[in-house]
């Protein structure tokens, strides 16, 4: 095995050999005694898949709606809109009337249903309007006040939702032009 010069942080000898082989210009046979181990590294879960973030976002979005209630279809679209800078920009353009006449403005948030289920069981949100709408409960309103009390918390989402006011099922139908919602 080729000797590798020592570095500041002592490496595992096999790690050093692998690095040496990788940086070598020549094509050489891998030493038979080399012990290469593959380990599964933990992956990163995006914050928008985290239950705590999603539940808080549902509460925040509903708190911006008139009477703190929204149709499920509208909730899906707004939850989708908060996802990234790009979706916020696209939704902002629709909201301000900059879209093709035939552009579909309905979007789905695949994780919304399970988030709502958890929020309903925990008493933050309650179904309304024969199950087609959801509204914040007293506990949900209390959490929304706590979210508002921390200006740094969900700052980008709050700024985005604040720019949409007045937000209601009616304003969404009017602005996004899909009365069949």
């Amino acid at each position, binding site marked *: 095995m080729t000797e590798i*010069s*020592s*570095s*500041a*942080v*002592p*490496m*595992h*000898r096999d790690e050093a050999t692998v690095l040496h082989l990788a940086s070598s210009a020549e094509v050489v046979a891998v030493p038979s*005694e080399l*012990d290469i*181990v593959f380990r*599964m*590294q*933990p*992956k*990163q*879960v*995006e*914050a*928008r*898949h*985290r*239950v*705590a*973030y999603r*539940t*808080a976002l549902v509460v925040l979005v509903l708190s911006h709606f008139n009477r703190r209630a929204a149709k499920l279809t509208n909730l899906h679209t707004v939850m989708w809109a908060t996802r*990234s*800078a790009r979706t916020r920009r696209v939704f902002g353009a629709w909201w301000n009337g900059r879209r093709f006449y035939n552009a579909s403005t309905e979007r789905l948030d695949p994780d919304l249903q*399970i988030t709502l289920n*958890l*929020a309903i*069981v*925990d*008493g*933050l949100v309650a179904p309304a309007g024969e199950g087609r709408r959801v509204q914040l409960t007293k*506990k949900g309103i*209390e*959490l929304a006040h*706590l*979210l508002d009390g*921390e200006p740094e*918390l*969900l*700052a*980008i989402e709050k700024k985005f939702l604040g720019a949409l006011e007045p937000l209601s099922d009616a304003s969404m139908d009017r602005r996004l032009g899909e009365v069949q919602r």
Partner: protein
Amino acid sequence: MLRLRAVRLRAHTIGGRFGRTVAFGPQFNVLRGDNSRGKTQVVQAVIYALGMERMLQARANAPLGSALTSEIRTTDDEQAHGLAVVSSWVAVELENSVGRITTAQRYVRHERLQPNIVRVWDGPALTDPSWAGAPDDLFLHLPGSASRELGFHKLLTDMLEWSLPEVPTYTGESRTLYPDVLFPFLIVDQQSWGSAGPRRVGRYQIRDPIRRSAEFLLSLEGPVADRRRAELDQTLATLRTQWAAARSAVDTLAGVVGGRVSGVPQHAAGAQARATSPEPTRLEAAELQLLERDEWLSAESVLTPLAEQIARAHAAGQRHVAADQDPETVRQLDEARSQLAEVAAAVLLLEQDLSLGEAQLAALDRRLNLLQEERDRNVDIRTLVRLGSQVAAFHLTDHNCPTCRQSLDPVEAGDLGPVLDVDETVALLNAQVSTTQKMRQRAQESVTQASNSYAAMQRRADQLRTTVRAFEADVMAPPEALSAGDIATQVTLQLRYDELQRTLAALRERFDELGGLAQQIAAVRAELSHLPAGTPETDTARLSTVALGMRQKLSETRFDSYDVSAVEIDQDSLRPTREGYDLDIDVSASDVVRIKVAYLDSIRVVGQQHGRHPGLLILDEPRQQDIDVDDFAAILNYLASSSSYAGQTIITTATPREQLDQLLPSTLSHVIDLGQERLLQPDPRTDPLDP
């Protein structure tokens, strides 16, 4: 030395108060109880009360069971029902080597007291109720909890007389070796018996956390030199960056006047890894050179004739235009046009470079915004968990499904496989933000340099255009008019002279700066080459003692997967190893337990004698892998023997009492028997530690 004197668990439910206090002896303790009675809860309570739950990677939340987090099952009139938990806490009473006793209490669930607050009494508040006066509130799991006076882990490390070292991370920086990275050597939880080594705590991005912990607990000397080497390497990296920046500035200055710098090497002597003890780079020969008639000449040798040209031009005054296209004027015009064409081509290339650089900068800005937004969201999640507890939104706090009480981890992770928890994600995103910021900084420097060169070339092109226009005017001018070309030449020469003087002054300052950096780089390299190489003899001897002790204990427990002499301490990871095999999968499950206990006890014995090991060893159900009764007796024997001089041992087991009495060494053991009782029993008294 650290000794656990007692642990208490309390829960207030809608149906009354429940609790249990378990007191431990100073040496060898066995906590016995039937299955599912709560032995593991006692160990988990110790982990939680000490703020060490982050060593259990699989779960970032409170590691305690439902009896302390949601409901207590109880049987009334032969009818089982659950009592919802309103608040709950756990507390431990600790004693160190100088007899200082401290009690730490941490709430699992409370409407006001957050889990990151630890209430501390400077006395035996569990075993002597008269001590339960006003506690100090210390914080946990926030920046500074291991370094600030009000941090609980600072208090704990003070009790242990630990001065936590800085250790290298995967990102090349260094960070404190936190207590929760070290504690897997002291506490073995029930889920970690699948591996022969201690739990590997990866959350802090520390490189080789097990090795660093073993080095610290055994007080090995090699790491001191390694740490100094890492520090010096870090300093060298910074100096190299400064050298590169100063050299880049020098090149830019030279580029502005269309010159180059010679005598300043790409790397200073000693900056490269192969260098030994070099002389510092000398910069006496460093100079600005300019291209004159296809030859690079020093700026000084260009300045003298330039000054003479200016003097001659002034002395000659302005000549008059000669009639009929003077050949000299035409030659000068052609030469100026040719130069202008060359400069225009160079400007075009520079413009392309600049556009590419700016596009890269914009892409990096977008990436940076994305990463920062994701990091902020993850940081927000910590706050959201706290707010969730204030409104009793329990699935935010305990991360369990409110209906079935199962963990919500699979809901978040989907089919991703193992995932990072929120804190690990924040650490990863911080590292990515830092890397992207550095890339952006470099891209910005490159764009700035290209922009400077672009501006200089544009200026040169403007000067040449002025000269061309002046000579064109001369060619077309009526005879006897003053020569515009001569006037333009005089002005251009004077501007060039002044510009060169200014650049030379600026370069002299930069050369001084580079000289200082060269001295520092050589000094750092000299210290690096004098650091001892290899493993010091004392370290080798200490590790040999650990290996010897481990093999001896293995022999006593009839380790039979292969020859005991094949089990070694790996010199790279400092974990138990057999050359060429993975011990975690290559031996039977019961042999993994045998190796693990023998290894941890050997580290404990050697670390207690020569190092910083506090002597405490807590083992939760080592017998779960069906170790033979005789071998279990051997394990109990050597642990009891070690406890008599190396520190306290607490071991939990479900072994029947009669059998246990036969296995235990007679005089050395303190048995706490829960029998068939559940751990938490009705206890209507008001506890002095309740707030």
